[in-house]
């Protein structure tokens, strides 16, 4: 996996693929990225002329679900991405090299492809105790991340861990885990949140970067707009039930069987930016709502800390209370209402007992 100067095209020709299949792949990729008819030829041109982009894939505090998702990509097929499109020079989960041999690749890439390689980060660094909660290759992960980020062209933050912090950064966050944009501030970071992100979103992003040699358009949160510009809710196939006012009340009621909207069951689709309802999962087979379960909002910031996944309203934990906005609001309104009633009662009593005052006031010109 060392030499990365050959092009995608020369690699697949060497593997015995025909030029016809190559063009087929280019047009399929262009279609899956939603690009125009001319894009297929520019993809072909890029893959014929540009050297394959070296990718370094690091793993911090994570569960490897991003890798698991990535290797299931169907459009483009993951074998095409890994064996042909990119030069995955380092990924400790799936590479053959191990030990010092593996670590040597990092140094080699850093020196040989300075400012040219893409750093893909799965998971995030814990900062407490000098980063000792995540040791990678004998050193705290944070050190490895910083040194590899220094010379990278761009950084991809795979998954909610690297993008927002995810479960290891959930309260009380004992290891001090932080999303990578808190420690790497001088490089462009593409956030690809999701727990895990959709396979086709991951491979689609890699294809975009290797094809055009630049980063895709990012939104305010640093996510690629092409996959994260709409909420689950906006493209949900149950949206018509939402607009109609048809909601599931219980998991086993007849409305659940009829496939009504899961809004009342705590579905986070209306607040979650992801492509699940458009691309779906496992090659377009299904996605959580289609399988009858609400969205967790796994691609959103701090989704572990918003109370139950099955509550419509967020649990608020400030001031040592665990209530939602309605409970707090009604309690406050109740207190105010009682105060008003008490005040009105006192006013009435006062007026009855201070009749002379009233008489005096009435005699004044008003």
């Amino acid at each position, binding site marked *: 996996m060392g030499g990365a100067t050959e092009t995608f095209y020369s690699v697949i020709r060497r593997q015995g693929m025909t030029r016809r299949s190559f063009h087929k792949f280019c047009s399929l990729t262009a279609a899956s990225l939603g690009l125009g008819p001319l894009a297929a030829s520019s993809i072909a041109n890029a893959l014929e002329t540009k050297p394959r982009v070296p990718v370094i894939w690091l793993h911090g505090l994570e569960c490897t679900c991003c890798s698991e998702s990535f290797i299931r990509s169907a459009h483009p097929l993951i074998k095409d991405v890994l064996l042909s499109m990119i030069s995955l020079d380092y990924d400790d989960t799936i590479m053959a090299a191990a030990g010092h041999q593996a670590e040597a690749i990092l140094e080699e890439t850093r020196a040989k492809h300075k400012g040219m390689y893409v750093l893909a980060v799965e998971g995030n660094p814990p900062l407490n105790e000098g980063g000792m909660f995540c040791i990678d290759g004998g050193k705290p992960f944070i050190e490895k991340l910083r040194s590899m980020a220094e010379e990278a062209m761009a950084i991809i933050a795979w998954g909610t861990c690297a993008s927002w912090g995810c479960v290891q950064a959930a309260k009380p966050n004992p290891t001090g885990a932080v999303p990578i944009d808190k420690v790497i501030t001088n490089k462009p970071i593409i956030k690809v949140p999701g727990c895990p992100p959709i396979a086709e979103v991951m491979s689609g992003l890699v294809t975009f970067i290797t094809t055009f040699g630049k980063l895709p358009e990012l939104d305010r*949160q640093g996510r690629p707009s092409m996959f994260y510009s709409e909420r689950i809710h906006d493209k949900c196939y149950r949206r*018509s039930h939402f607009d109609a*006012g048809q909601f599931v009340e219980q998991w086993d009621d007849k409305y659940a069987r009829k496939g009504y909207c899961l809004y*009342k069951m705590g579905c*986070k689709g209306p607040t979650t930016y992801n492509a699940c309802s458009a691309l779906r999962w496992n090659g377009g087979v299904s996605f959580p709502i289609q399988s009858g379960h609400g969205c967790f909002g796994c691609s959103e*910031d701090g989704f572990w800390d918003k109370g139950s996944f099955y509550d419509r309203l*967020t649990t608020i934990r400030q001031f040592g209370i665990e209530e939602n906005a*309605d409970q707090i609001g009604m309690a406050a309104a109740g207190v105010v209402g009682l105060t008003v009633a008490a005040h009105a009662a006192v006013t009435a009593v006062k007026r009855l007992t201070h009749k002379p005052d009233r008489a005096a006031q009435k005699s*004044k010109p*008003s």
Partner: protein
Amino acid sequence: MFANDMLDRARKLLATVDAEPTERSIGAGIACAPVRLWHWVNAAAILMLSVTGYVIGTGTPAMSGEASGNFLFGYIRFAHFSAGYVLSIGFLLRIYWALIGNAHAMQIFWVPLWRKCFWREVYHEIRWYAFLTVEPERRVGHNRLAQLAMFFMFTQTITFMVVTGFALYGQGAGTDSWQYKLFGWVFSIWPNSQDVHTWHHLGLWVIVAFALVHIYAVVREHSRRAGASLL
């Protein structure tokens, strides 16, 4: 320059307010017609927004029949958004009127917290509401305590509700909509819009608490002196 002019003007207006005869009753032309009109349009919009907002937060009972034959939640949301526009445009006009209208039109936007006599009047007003003194400080327009409540519970909350409301609306309208372009910065403060929903929801209850006190104070004042108008 503009800021200086504004400041001068505000000082003059405040001087006018201070100079008002304190023995006059509230109803004597203080709340001019535009403010009265705004008040009731605003009140109607808030009522509509509160009820529909609460229902949007909790969801409706299931409607029978096909989804194609119903649009209940859509209508509720439409009512919420329309009332939101009415409230927002009304609020903008109200700000404009505060700048060109009479001294009292400025009161809910301009609270001279740095002035000693302001706090003296607030103290007096607290004593009055606590039945510790017989005469209220001020008979014209809002008293100082009411002005404080107006500014912090109404003006601030409504501004917050308009901003977060349009930000949330912008999510549905799409990231290329003007609502999102203008108010999308809210999501730089709270990246997860679930938090914005929660804050927007808490804002509803601040308004409810405010309305309770507001209506009580008005009714009490009205019953105390027959001459007082209900605006």
